[in-house]
């Protein structure tokens, strides 16, 4: 019974705005990950500084 409640709750039809907002949020989190964790890493910084020196 309780589980059935859990399955039903929050399952209203999705609207367009909510779908687009979710997509933008997820994309931002992914982009920020690449920007901060990958491009901002020590290795990347060292790589960029080498390119800059050239």
């Amino acid at each position: 019974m309780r589980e059935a409640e859990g399955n039903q709750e929050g399952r209203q039809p999705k609207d367009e705005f909510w779908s687009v907002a979710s997509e933008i949020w997820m994309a931002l989190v992914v982009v920020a990950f690449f920007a901060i964790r990958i491009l901002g890493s020590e290795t990347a910084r060292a790589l960029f500084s080498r390119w800059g020196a050239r």
Partner: protein
Amino acid sequence: MALLALKAFFALAVLIVAAYGAGIWIGKLLPNTFREFERAVFSLLGGLGILSSILFLVGQFSFTRLSIGLVLGLAAVLGAGGVFRWKAEYAPENRPVGKSSATAIWIVACVLSVTAVAGLAEITGDWDNDAVAYHLLGPKVWLRDGVIRPVLDNSHTAFPQIAETLFGALLGIGGTRAPNFSGVLMLGLLLAVCAATGRRLGMSERDAWWAAAIVATMPAVFAGSHGCFIDGLYAAFLIAAMRLAFDAQRWSEWAVLGLFCGFAMGTKYTGLLAVPILIFCAIAMRAREKTGWRNLARNAVTAIVAGGVIAAPYYLRNWMMLGCPIYPPPPGYASFCSPKYMPADVISNFHAYIRERGAGMGRGIFAFLLLPLNLTYHTANFHGAGGIGLCPLGLGPIGVIAARKNPAARMMLLLALLLTAAWFVTQQESRFLIPVYGMAAIFAVLGWRDAVRGGRFFSRAIAIILVAISVSYGAFMIGETTLPEMRTVFSPAYAASRRTQEIPYFSSFEYLNREPSVQRVLVLDRSIPPYYLDKPYIKPIGQWGERTLPGAPDEAGALEEARTLQVTHVLDVISASSPFQVKVGAPGLRLVFEGPGQRVFLVE
């Protein structure tokens, strides 16, 4: 190595069967919303707590291989019947797993396999490694002394000891590799409890596997669940208590909830903050039900009393033996206790260290609001061991909004927020927040399902990319950190070189452990980790500055009393904190071994 691995495997198998036997009655008291699998998981987890509590109480009088074997043996007899019954009822062939969950199952299986293999590696490291400093030091000394007592030269051995008592039992019956190997059980139980909670919040079996996979690939969770760290077990107890709070109706169900709260408080001091918060959230969630305030209050008191009974032995023992129930004592201790063996300056230095280590990225309101971002992207500032992945930040908020009408999800959100706030103002150490990471992973999977529900291609694609990055980055970080450990399991040469490199003063320990004339060692530097010493020892000044001897002498004072203290050998080293303290040729001391920065003297 094969023999060590076999012994570890055997000991863990015995512990699992015994824990199941000790907790089999818990499964029968759970609310009727629990499935058979959940009952087995909660029986096993609760059984670990019960078994450890019994071993701890028995260990106050005798903690030998015989007493451990008797307790485990009796419980294992009860457990064996239960395991066979459960196996017949819950045989895998009767429960086909959908193809769609194969990826998640594969991820969970890989992480658990890595945990098991890496867990067979020998624990090495210096006093910065908590396992060496105290998680394993206590159990090793208890077994040597045949009784459970705090080891005075490391005040952290007085922490609540549910996990450490289990390590001691494993060490006793399964040898040196068994405690580390048990990480696979602790992590596995945490994942199972998270999956069970996800199912309660409306997840399909496939999604529950994904919740487990996301938790498993959080490097911060992994770091707190293997290598004899106890945070994973603590989180499993706390999340199990929360899962029970969703559905507990009868007083017996609330009592079981209280047991799990007690196990959390008996595993880690942070449970003392977390449990009142959990009970508050449970009351807030259930207040709208028609059972009435009187009934709710009675149930809450039942849970608190049950939890208190379980946790009390750890705190009362400390109070009686060390002068303070929480030891090392927290700020403001002077008003309620007088700790022994720790002078006031040592305690204030310890508090300063905790404040500095737990500063994270600040304590203001702005820092609190930025926590989700900082925990995700700047994990090193929280000693985060590779972080928590992208799912909590990327999908968690969507899950929170999607499940906002579910009372259990609301309670979980409130609990997560309050636990995070308590963590934020106390010590911002990433692994202390593992219970919240588990809850965040559950919200993330709820969010993932909601995000793809509209059927839009971009939603599906970006969600899959996010989860794939999160899981693969986490798996990479876990693989990178465990690679050396796994290598030691398969390469004896590498294991030997790792021992010499990572065990401080290795050659002195080797000499002292193999030399039969060594009866009792005076350890002269507080940085020396006595975990590696197989003989009785005296360390006058402990790791945090504890004064362990009557009259609180320093090293020089203890050296003068060496004969009275029945010391046969003295270990003197050059460390970051001090040079050699004994001159070669000092009267009554003969140099018998010398290595780089280390000397052993015989007391004549």
